[in-house]
């Protein structure tokens, strides 16, 4: 997290606000609710109390305006710049402006007023932009459900105002996972046209031969349609698609683009209805088979015929000795299967049917 220079903050914990005008995109009551809920996000973790004024000068003056709207800091029409707010101070300090050229919503359509307001009020209270992509104070808009503050935001605001004495622990959104955490485990690993994509929580890392460092992104920033939690993924390089599994649904990518006609149910692959989630998936390029790992068993799917092979499910422990009985993620390179489970990575020789090496999971991230 970051603060503004000189750690600007309100001198009192009683902060007033006033809504000067309303957007026609929403009912007045919806705007009132979005604004109140956005303040509640911050009051939940601090001693701050927000009081609404209906006339006169409030600390935080809230308004909707388009283009040049009175502060010589013009908006830019639809999209791009959504809103801005001024750090705590007299006069314009704390004031929060929303671009009326945007479409304001109370759902997942662009742009959710509550989320943007919560971010802007962060500025109005003294928070500058954070470079943590999982935090509310990250400068780029992302839609997400639930309590929007990440641990990073909470630490930032509490270092200015302290904790809320009357409120217990909140469940913040998890921070972006740290790639060199020795306990790091993965949700899913896949190739994508020569790149490696590693899913973890709401994020993914992208490994590219021409990039010295892994790049971390929010899943929603790249694929807004895909859920925040990916269970498994694999690439079929022959057909040039990547399948992403989340719960009982699956999505297909061609390059970075989602393929029309998805999501589909995983049972379309021939899995029994009792399977509610796939733990890991990997395509064995040399055989054209895709292995699907579910709990302590795995299935084999024939990509050529589009059917499940008979004789499955089989036991993971018996058929891949040495890797344990469950896997989180799997990948295949040059005759070796790489199984990820908890913080470990097992290099398994497909030909000699044994584990050749055991490494930390995050050695793939250069740690």
């Amino acid at each position, binding site marked *: 997290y970051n603060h503004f220079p000189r750690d600007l903050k309100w001198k009192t914990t009683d902060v007033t606000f006033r809504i000067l005008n309303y957007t026609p995109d929403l009912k007045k009551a919806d705007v009132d609710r979005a604004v109140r809920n956005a303040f509640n996000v911050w009051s939940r973790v601090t001693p701050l109390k927000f009081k609404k004024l209906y006339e006169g000068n409030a600390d935080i003056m809230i308004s909707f305006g388009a283009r040049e709207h009175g502060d010589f800091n013009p908006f830019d029409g639809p999209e791009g710049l959504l809103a801005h707010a001024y750090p705590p101070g007299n006069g314009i300090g704390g004031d929060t402006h929303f671009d009326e050229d945007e479409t304001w919503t109370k759902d997942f359509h662009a742009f959710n007023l509550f989320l943007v307001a919560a971010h802007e009020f962060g500025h109005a209270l003294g928070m500058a*932009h954070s470079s943590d992509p999982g935090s509310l104070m990250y400068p*780029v808009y992302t839609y997400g459900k639930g309590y929007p503050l990440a641990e990073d935001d909470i630490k930032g605001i509490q270092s200015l105002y302290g904790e809320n004495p009357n409120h217990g622990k909140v469940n913040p959104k998890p921070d972006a996972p740290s790639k060199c955490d020795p306990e790091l485990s993965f949700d899913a690993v896949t190739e994508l046209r020569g790149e490696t994509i590693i899913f973890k929580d709401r994020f993914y890392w992208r490994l590219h031969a021409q990039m010295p460092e892994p790049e971390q992104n929010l899943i929603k920033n790249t694929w807004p349609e895909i859920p925040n939690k990916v269970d498994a993924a694999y690439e079929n390089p022959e057909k040039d698609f990547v399948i992403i599994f989340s719960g009982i649904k699956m999505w297909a990518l061609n390059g970075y683009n989602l393929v029309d006609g998805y999501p589909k149910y995983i049972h379309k692959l021939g899995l029994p209805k009792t399977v509610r989630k796939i733990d890991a998936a990997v395509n064995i390029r040399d055989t054209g088979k895709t292995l699907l790992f579910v709990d302590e068993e795995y299935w084999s799917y024939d990509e050529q015929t589009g059917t499940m092979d008979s004789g499955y499910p089989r036991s993971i422990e018996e058929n891949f000795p040495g890797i344990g009985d469950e896997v989180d993620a799997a990948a295949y390179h040059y005759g070796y299967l790489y199984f990820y489970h908890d913080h470990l990575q097992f290099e398994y020789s497909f030909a000699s049917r044994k584990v050749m090496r055991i490494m930390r999971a995050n050695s793939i991230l250069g740690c």
Partner: protein
Amino acid sequence: KPISSEEKDDVLLAERYLRRYYGMPAGLQGERKTSDVMSKKIREMQEFFKLEVTGKLDDDTLEIMEMARCGVPDVAE
């Protein structure tokens, strides 16, 4: 070779973005100086967003610049 109009658009987008959010001064003199300052500001932006720091307008950098965002500068004045 002459700069294509698409590349020109990218440079304009980047200039606007860096002026607004990274305090790149307007009205610089001389092509060389402009490009040095722009490269420095691109680096600052790439560092903030944890992109590969190249100082160049690559696809990933442009992608972030095109995203909808808050109007408050990332680097406080």
